[in-house]
């Protein structure tokens, strides 16, 4: 059966070529169980590097202007790329 692995990369800008600053991996095969704080180095330096290793991008971050009055508000990471691999498991 084919199962999905999700790699979520948070980049410095909206470009998939920019530096990765945060990351998560969710493995639908059950082979890996990842958790908060379990690695110090990004798995790839950029989204593009992950693509070159076979990961398929399934979500690009939308670009939205700030609502008036919230131009300097910060909260979640803006540039979230979701990538997948489909693997036999």
């Amino acid at each position, binding site marked *: 059966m084919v199962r999905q692995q999700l790699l*979520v990369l*948070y*980049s*410095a*800008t909206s470009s998939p070529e*920019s*530096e*990765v*600053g*945060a*990351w*998560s*991996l969710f493995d639908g095969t059950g082979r890996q169980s*990842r*958790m*908060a*704080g*379990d*690695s*110090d180095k*990004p798995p790839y330096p950029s989204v593009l590097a992950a693509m070159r290793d076979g990961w398929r991008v399934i979500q690009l971050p939308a670009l939205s202007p700030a609502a008036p009055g919230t131009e*300097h*508000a*910060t*909260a*979640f*990471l*803006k*540039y979230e790329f979701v990538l997948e691999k489909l693997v036999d498991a």
Partner: protein
Amino acid sequence: MAETHLLDSKQVAAFVADGYLRFDGLVPGPLSAAVLDELGAGGPPSSFGAAPGNPARAWPGRPLQGLFRDWPAVLALVELPAVAAIVESLLGPAPIYDHHYAHVIAAEQRWSQPWHADAIEDPRRTAFDIQLFFFPHETPREMGGTMILPGSHLRRINEASIARYQNFVGQAPMVCPAGSLLICHHGIWHCGQPNLTKLPRTMLKLRLGPGTRQHRMWNTADLDDPAIGAILSRDHRWYGHEVRLEIANRIRLWRALSGQPRFDVDYWLTRLENETADT
């Protein structure tokens, strides 16, 4: 409070930029051991879940002074001049008790708490609470301890809404000797790390709020030190090109704390404040 114990301006600026200050081995060994014993014996009771009629239920919102009088080790901890001076430097001379809890992570606990900030989203812009994370015993990496994300404190999120995130460039586990103290802005993103050892890990968390307007409560002799601008401009990298927004928000907080309404770094805010009355 003698000014020699208070934080200086550069330390407070670092708190504004990073969201935390850490003091390794600040508390003497015998007192740290006494606190650990006192916590192990069940005290002082947390306001969370205290039985009806237990005085601790009424502690939140009251001045900290005197609340721990029946718990000599924890009382000595919060009244230690170095600790009391840090609290006064950030909250003023009469801090308000919010809550405390002794977090004990069992031996061989392999699960990490997800990233979160404590409590609900906080709309305050210039006031802030602090959380004291006290590590009474040595905490090596295989024991955890609490992992924090430097520079995350001004990002407004609600509790574990960030649980999808697993790792960040620059995340920092609190690996420390006994008697260490981590002082965090209430908004800091953090998570308790697994304890892979055969011993339980204990950390006392105490949240305190300001009893007065937070304005120049530290030793301000170095208030005009040019290093402050560089400290407020620190780049923690994980937020990418939003670093300039982070700096702008830190400048706003520093203006309020320092009583310098025109303070700026590299003209970031001043260029946005030149609208004339007729535009």
